[in-house]
Each structure stands twice: as structure tokens, then as C-alpha cells.
């Protein structure tokens, strides 16, 4: 009897004690961190520590074999007198500045074209989207063959229309345009995002505008574009980030050439690190790429981000 009474007495006392030791919010904190612990660990192991190593490498010269040698600011100085870096920057910037807006324009146009309920429209959506999932390596092999000067599809078509034989991949002037054309083949991803955005615009807006007498152009200008601006913004950011990291096309189709016309920044980093075994300088250029992307993202958010129209701000 007494023992059970004691147990009954200690039980309610023990519980608040436990609760005092671990409040609800504390327990929530522990569970929360347990759940996201893979990410935190991964962030430390594969991101923060590598970033610190990269920082260390920027002031060292290291070929992976002998011991790293402290060189102070030599690597950073080399950024300014490296003859290949301006070429890599030029190729990357040109590619981005042309391919991203052109890709956005085309994918937006295609999304508008697909945004209807015509019979068979699903087949067209599939066909337009399909090229964007083709593996980059396979796509590179295919387009290298398409741009073959003598027997490639592109020149076959141009010649059948009476045009000249374009030395696509042999000429420093044509190689970059060739890779840009190739990138336009796979605009399907952003096209589908645009299409979903277009379908999300309520019909009432267009009906109201029609009653007010708005034509096709006015509806596009005053309803579609403002309503789509967050989606356009999203695709723009993703486009920038992707095109700055273009690698496979430059590596496989042109190998950076001819005369470094397609020596993209990532390809240059890859070569510096794994062909020249210049880890210190490769890390330095990686940091440069990082700062360029941060700077560009900042500019895009600052000057374009505030023009974006959000229907439900704060959501």
C-alpha cells in the first residue's frame, strides 16, 4: 500500500522535473536539429571546410605532389597579368549575355504558343520539352556532328538554301555562336516554368481587360508581363547561374578553341587544376567566379528584383 502511494506521489513530481529540464521549445530545438543534421554536417564537410581550404590555396602554390609553398599574393597578382583569364571572362560573359536573354525570349514565346487548349497540344508540349533532358555529353556529341563543316546538318541546310559553308567550329568567330545556338535547343525547362506561370493567370483579368477594350498587345503588356514578372525573374537568375557554369560544350565540342574562343571560366579552372596541376591559382580563379556570381546576383536582385510584381506580397 505505502509503496504504491509513494510511486503515485513521485510520479507527478518527476514529470514536472523532466519538463523543467527540457521545455517544449528545447525539445523542439533538439528534434529540429536532429532532422536537419545531415544538411549541417554536409554543409560543414563539403562546403565550409572546402571554402577554407580554397582560401588557404589562394596564397599557396601547390601541384598536389610536393608540399604547398606559400607565395603570398602571387596568385591574386597573376589574375591581373594572366593572358588567358580575360579570354575566359570574355567567352563566359559573351555566352551569358547572348544566350540567357535569347533563351528567355524564345522559351517565353514558345510557352505563349503552347498556352492553349487546341487538340494535340500535349504532343507539342512534349516535343518542345524533350531536348532539354538530353544528357549534355550526348548532346555535345550530336551538335559537334551537326556543326561539322563538311557534312553537318547545319551546313547541309544552309547550303540547300543557297548559303555559304560556315566553318562553325573551326573559326573563332563562329564557335561561340554555334554553342549558343546549341543552348537554344534545350530551352524546354524554362519554357515549362513559363507555361505553368501563364496558366496560373486567372482568366478574369483578361476578360476584364477585353471589356475595357484592350487588344492582344495591351493584354500582353499590362496583364501577362506584370503577372509573369516573378517567373521571368526566377528564370533569369537560374539562366545566369547555369550559363556561368557552362562546361561540357566547351570541353567536348571545341576543347576551349579555336584560339580560346570558347575557353569558358569553368573549363579554364578545370584545366588549371587538373591539367596544369596549379591548385593555388585554380582556387583563386574559383573565388573570382564566386565573387562575379555574387555580384551579378546582387545587381539582378537590386535592379530587376524590385520591378517584379508580386500579387500577394509577403507570401
Amino acid at each position, binding site marked *: 500500500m505505502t509503496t504504491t502511494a509513494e510511486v503515485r506521489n513521485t510520479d507527478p513530481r518527476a514529470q514536472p522535473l523532466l519538463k523543467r529540464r527540457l521545455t517544449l*521549445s528545447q525539445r*523542439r*530545438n533538439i*528534434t*529540429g*536539429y*536532429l*532532422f*536537419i543534421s*545531415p*544538411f549541417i*554536417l*554536409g554543409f560543414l564537410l*563539403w562546403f565550409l*571546410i*572546402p*571554402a577554407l*581550404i*580554397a582560401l588557404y*590555396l589562394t596564397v599557396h602554390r601547390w601541384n*598536389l605532389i610536393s608540399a604547398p609553398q606559400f607565395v603570398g599574393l602571387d596568385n591574386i597578382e597573376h589574375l591581373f597579368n594572366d593572358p588567358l583569364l580575360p579570354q575566359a571572362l570574355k567567352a563566359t560573359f559573351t555566352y551569358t549575355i547572348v544566350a540567357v536573354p535569347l533563351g528567355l525570349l524564345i522559351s517565353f514565346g*514558345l510557352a505563349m*504558343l*503552347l498556352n492553349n487548349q*487546341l487538340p494535340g497540344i500535349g504532343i507539342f508540349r512534349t*516535343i*518542345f520539352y*524533350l531536348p532539354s*533532358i*538530353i544528357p549534355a*555529353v*550526348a548532346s*555535345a*556529341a*550530336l*551538335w*559537334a*556532328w551537326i556543326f561539322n563543316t563538311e*557534312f553537318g*546538318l547545319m551546313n547541309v541546310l544552309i547550303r540547300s538554301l543557297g548559303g555559304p559553308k560556315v566553318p562553325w567550329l573551326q573559326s573563332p568567330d563562329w564557335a561561340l555562336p554555334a554553342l549558343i545556338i546549341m543552348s537554344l535547343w534545350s530551352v524546354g525547362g524554362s519554357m*515549362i*516554368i513559363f507555361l505553368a*506561370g501563364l496558366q496560373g493567370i486567372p482568366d478574369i483579368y483578361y476578360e476584364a481587360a477585353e*471589356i475595357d*477594350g484592350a487588344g492582344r498587345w495591351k493584354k500582353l503588356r499590362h496583364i501577362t508581363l506584370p503577372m509573369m514578372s516573378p517567373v521571368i525573374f*526566377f528564370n533569369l*537568375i537560374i539562366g545566369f*547561374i547555369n550559363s*556561368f*557554369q557552362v*562546361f*561540357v560544350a566547351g570541353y567536348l565540342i571545341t576543347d576551349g578553341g579555336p584560339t580560346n574562343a570558347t575557353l569558358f571560366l*569553368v573549363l579554364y579552372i*578545370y584545366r588549371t*587544376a587538373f591539367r596544369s596541376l596549379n*591548385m593555388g591559382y*585554380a582556387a583563386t580563379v*574559383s573565388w573570382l*567566379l564566386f565573387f562575379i*556570381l555574387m555580384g551579378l546576383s546582387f545587381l539582378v536582385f537590386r535592379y530587376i528584383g524590385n520591378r517584379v510584381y508580386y500579387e500577394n506580397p509577403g507570401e
Partner: protein
Amino acid sequence: MSSSDISLSESTSVSAFEEQAPPSKSRWMHWFTYILLIAVAALMLFPFLWLVSSSLKSQVQIFAYPPEWIPNPPIWQNYVDAMTFRPFHIYLRNSIAIASLNVIAVVLTSSLCAYGFARIRFWGREFWFSIVIATLLLPSIVTLVPQFIIFTRLGWIDTILPLTVPIFFGGGAFNIFLLRQFFRTIPEELADAARIDGCSEFGIYWRVMMPLSKPALITVAIFTFLASWNDLIGPLVYLRTPDTYTVAIGLAQFRGALTTRWDLQMAAATVMVLPVVVLFFFAQRYFIKGIVMTGLKG
């Protein structure tokens, strides 16, 4: 004043048009749309036709001008030659192994982290989620060189470990972000009901959220598989001996070794494309869903 004038004139013209012949206008529009659609579709399909057609040509046919679109006879031997020139079956096996491990890693760990971010209110959640977004925007190339050094020290070079183990740590910011967005759309009441029944937080995640999130998980799994299947720079940096090669690197090496054998190159490329296209046709709606989720709920 002027704006009302415009709207008036336009509305009258529209109504006048409608009185005349509304169906013919829309029919014209339909035809015009179809013509544009077919033209673009032809442009999109041309490279595919060229790929398959070239892969079935003889060495003579491939350099013929004007080109034959349907090779006669089709040289199926090209596929055999392309697959046996290098041990492609080993590459296929490696690619499938790496991609499958990546899928498992993402489905298990991305969803775990995503649940934490979506459903548990803990101290510092906003901070860590902003880190997720930051790593989402950062190019992976920035950490390539130091990561290579870490993996060298670990003795992981020339194994599939650098291409699989890191994925088990959260499975990438993109997937965490995507699954978090999806988890937030599942009604909280379901979790509350399980909680009242004495279900732990992990139990809610595993027994309530995961089964309800199958569509999102399949989407994430597909995109993970594709990313791994298509990846070139990772295998290029970490794999050294042909025994560990993936299809992507096999095809890349192929280009270097058989520069002028476009027929074999196209056959090998077709073999690499085929699984992706098949996957796409079987799981089309998950593709579309995934893209839409990333684009609109951000």
C-alpha cells in the same frame, strides 16, 4: 479622355468583327498556331532524327552529300561496334550504381532535412534555411578543387565514393528546398492526429509525410537520377581507371578516340539518350510537376 477614346473605338471594332464572322477569325488563329507549332516541332525534332539516322549509316553513307535521311540499309552493327569498342556494359553498370545510390541518398536525407525545415519550429531555423538557399545559388565549381583535395586525402580517388557519399548529407539544397515546399502543402491536422495517437516526430515524418509525398519524392528521384546520369565533370575529376567509368565519361573518351567515326559516336550517344527518353515517357507528369514546383512556389 484619349484612353477612353481608344477603348471605345477598339470595343466597337471588336464587336463589329464578332457580328461579321467570329468562327472564321478563331479558325484562322488556330491554323496559324498549328503552323507555328509544327514548324517549331520540326526544328526541335531535326537533331533527334539526325542523331538516329547518323547512328545507322555506314562509313560511306555518313559522308554523303546530300545526306540520306533514312539509311538504306540501316547498319545495326554500328551499335554492336560502339558497345564493344570499349566495355560499355561496365560503364552502364557504374552509371546505374552511382545514380541509384544518389537517388536513395536524396530520398532519405533530403526529405529528412526538408521535414525539419517545413514542420519543426526550432531556434535558428530561418538562419539555416537561408544557408540552404545560399548554397542553392552557389556554383558547385567553386568547391571542386578543395573537394578534390579532401577526397585525395581520404583515398577516395578512383572510387565512386566522391560521387555518392556527399549526397547522403542532405542530398543537395535544391532537393531540400523542393521537398520542403511540398511538405508545407500537406495539412498540419494529419500530423496532429498522429501526434495525439502518440506518434513521435520521426514517426510522423516516416509514416505520415513520406507516404503522402510520393509524387514529390518520385519527382526528386527522377531529377536526381538524371543529374547523376548526365554528370561529366564529377566522373572526369574523380574516376581514373576504365573499370570505374560512367557512360558520360565513356562517351567523352569515345569522342577523343574515334574522332571521325561519327556513326559510332552517334550510336553511343543514342544509347546514352535512350534511357532518359524512356524514363521521360513513363514518368512525364512527374517531370512537369517537378519543374512547375521549382518555378512557381519559390
